């Protein structure tokens, strides 16, 4: 595909009489060398979140706002933003953004990552002709919340000819959290158009998110691919720290928020406890006003799942719970992935009541089905069930 796309570009250029032969000498060997530059995987990686072999920077192509009632972007910004100091959540887009999305296109150099099916990971190595790692992030301009599960489709074209189309993997990285991305091969340096089709989310939405993220939107970016710029993106080796438990700090960016779960203290409702499994952190809550979650039950049981250290939302799990009171089973069922303005992305279900002394079993039927950057690929896979007992302090009603 790389070769064909190059030939097509070459044909277009030759009409202008450009001397293509020089360019052709290296035509089929666009060796990028990223695989060779990459530090080796740390040895003895723990089955937990660990410091990766290196930290990588990124470049931003741009951020665009997509209107709620239209199909096209209304504003654009360009520029590098990998080391901002402001921890703004990228919100506050002003008028015309309610109901819409904001979408960022970013990139780094190609790197290894792991896809996940079930509890298995599949390592995706860097291929010889990979040009960059292209990433798309989509969020709600008003709240900075990511409608995770959007699975956008990207079409890269040049001079009106399609170069490649793909639906990048949903993934988690330590410095960026949730995004979608993939290693991509481009036929050469130059100007490209990147069209991003954002499908509606399939995650249940509650509160002011009801009816939001509900229709397909499309946005277009202009992108100049310069291998030199990609080469210059920061690659910071972590040395001895690599492979030990812990995580690198999240990036701070002015133009783009991170998909962070609310701090434990800021979650609504009664705290029922915090459990850890597979190195993931589950903050468990009971909300006694369950009206906005539908159903007839009075109480809403919510699990806010996040990564340790960085508090990134852990999406795309199958979670279920059993609530037992003495010999009685009060609730036994699935917790549905839900987007709520207060709880952010979480897993929840209506239950009749939750009282002091209740036992709550939380079962991970399937771990997060998102690809992982280095440092996350050994965590959040084997996730045994956990039980907590509702204490006096939070038993309430």
């Amino acid at each position, binding site marked *: 595909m790389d*070769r064909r796309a190059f030939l097509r570009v070459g044909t277009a250029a030759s009409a202008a009489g450009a001397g293509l032969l020089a360019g052709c000498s290296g035509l089929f060997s666009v060796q990028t060398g990223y695989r060779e530059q990459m530090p080796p995987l740390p040895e003895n990686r723990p089955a937990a979140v660990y410091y990766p072999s290196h930290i990588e920077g990124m470049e931003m192509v741009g951020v665009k706002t997509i209107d709620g009632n239209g199909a096209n972007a209304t504003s654009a910004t360009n520029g590098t933003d990998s080391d901002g100091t402001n921890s703004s959540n990228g919100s506050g887009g002003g008028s015309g953004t309610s109901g819409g999305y904001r979408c960022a296109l970013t990139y780094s150099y190609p790197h290894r990552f792991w896809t*996940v099916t079930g509890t298995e990971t599949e390592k995706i190595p860097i291929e010889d002709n990979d040009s960059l790692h292209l990433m798309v992030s989509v969020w709600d301009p008003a709240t900075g919340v990511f409608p995770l599960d959007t*699975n956008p*489709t990207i079409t890269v074209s040049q001079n009106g000819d*399609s170069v490649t189309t793909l639906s990048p993997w949903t993934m988690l990285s330590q410095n960026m959290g949730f995004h979608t991305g993939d290693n991509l091969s481009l036929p050469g340096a130059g100007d490209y158009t990147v069209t991003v089709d954002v*499908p509606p989310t399939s995650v249940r939405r509650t509160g002011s998110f009801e009816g939001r993220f509900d229709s*397909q939107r499309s946005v277009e970016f202009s992108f100049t691919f310069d291998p030199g710029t990609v080469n210059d993106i920061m690659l910071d080796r972590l040395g001895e720290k690599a492979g030990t438990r812990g995580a690198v700090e999240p990036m701070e960016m002015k133009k783009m928020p991170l998909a962070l779960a609310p701090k434990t203290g800021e979650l609504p409702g009664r705290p029922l406890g915090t459990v850890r499994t597979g190195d993931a952190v589950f903050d468990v809550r009971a909300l006694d006003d369950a009206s906005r979650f539908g159903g007839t039950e009075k109480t809403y049981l919510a699990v806010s799942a996040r990564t340790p250290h960085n508090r990134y939302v852990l999406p795309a799990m*199958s979670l279920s719970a059993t609530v037992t009171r003495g010999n009685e089973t009060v609730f036994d069922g699935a917790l549905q992935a839900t987007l709520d303005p207060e709880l952010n992305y979480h897993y929840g279900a209506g239950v009749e009541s939750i009282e002091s002394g209740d036992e709550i079993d939380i079962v991970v039927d*399937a*771990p997060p089905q998102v690809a992982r950057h280095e440092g996350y690929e050994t965590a959040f896979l084997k996730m045994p069930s956990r039980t907590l007992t509702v204490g006096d302090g939070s038993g309430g009603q």
Partner: protein
Amino acid sequence: MPHGTERGLSRRAFVKAAVAIGGSAALSACLARESSPDLPQGPDDLSTLPSRQHAWNEFLALGDNDNHLGPRHRVLLYLRYGEEGAPTRDDRRRTERALQALERAYPHSHDGLLFTVSYSPAYFARFDESLPESVDLQQPKALTPFEDPELDRPDAVAHLASDHGQVVLGAEEALLGDTEKLNGVDIDASLTGVFERIDRRTGFVGDGLPADNQDVQGIPDSEPVPDDSPMYMGFKSGFDKNQATEDGVTIDAGPFAGGTTQQISTIKLHLDQWYDQDSRSQRVGKMFCPAHAESGAVEGVGDNLGNSSRMDDCPPAEKSARESGLVGHSQKAARARENDRPIILRRDFDSTDGEEATLHFLSLQQTIADFTDTRESMTSTDLAEESALGRKNNNGILQYMSVTRRGNYLLPPRGLRALPAAVPRQ
């Protein structure tokens, strides 16, 4: 599509290229290159032909395990009727004569020529009366929340099919009035002056053809398509037990009894991730079901499966979605069944149209609603809502395709195939 030169092109690829290019030049090239199949002519007595246009199965080749094999070369001709309003009796007669000429020229067989003619909702809007209630022909529309296909609105679509590329090309030439003889039979009528050809789509299906034609966008340069795969994605499809029967898709009442409805989606395939990044086990899981991936049930392209994709060995889609975080394409399709049988009959084929790996997903079903129900099962919004499945990630093969065009058609019985009225006189 293979590039101009013949160098390095296998015979199969060359024939496919000629079908894709079309026209008399392609036919001449094809005739010179492909040893001309020595075919008998069609019957003199056309009353021996089936009354259902879509009654192809008994005239198809049988593969291993007696699965029906679709004809290897295809052309879809998109036709616009030249007149305003309802068609004239003369045009109807001329159309029928042109179609009968094809039937006289070649045997009604995969080894000869099989074809159908179908009509769109836009065509039937030419009549004052509406189609009878016994026909469910809906306007085409987007069927998933993440597609925005161009909607095809020709008057008619002719589907030409044969195991011989030059038979398909010859039939097309005859219909377009570009030849006076076909396989020794005089062509005394064509569609010229009745219809204008406004689009043309081509393709192929069957062992070897996808591998021979994988130099297109959407497939990695590593030539990953197995030599014995009938489809680009590397697996067999259309197992007999995973198809509706011809009886099952046939309209059973009203003036169009004996007909069926036809849906054609153009689907672009994006198989770089599929072949370069997914493991074999992931591909089997996503195409069939995670249980097949685990048990190693699928060998090679799946010939060992017999005449079904063995969905009985897979848990229900809902269970796999919840517990495996992954659901297979076949597993989702198995949710749309009646009497333990799928409700659509696939006659789809791959294509290099636009130099992109493409699937022309052509299906027959009694009602268009049967197709929309099946498609809804594939989209699986319900599963994604209730489990770890993503909108596309781990959700069958949704990640690897984009629907770009769609059209719906009524495929009338043979007796009404030439410019039928919305309410034909009985």
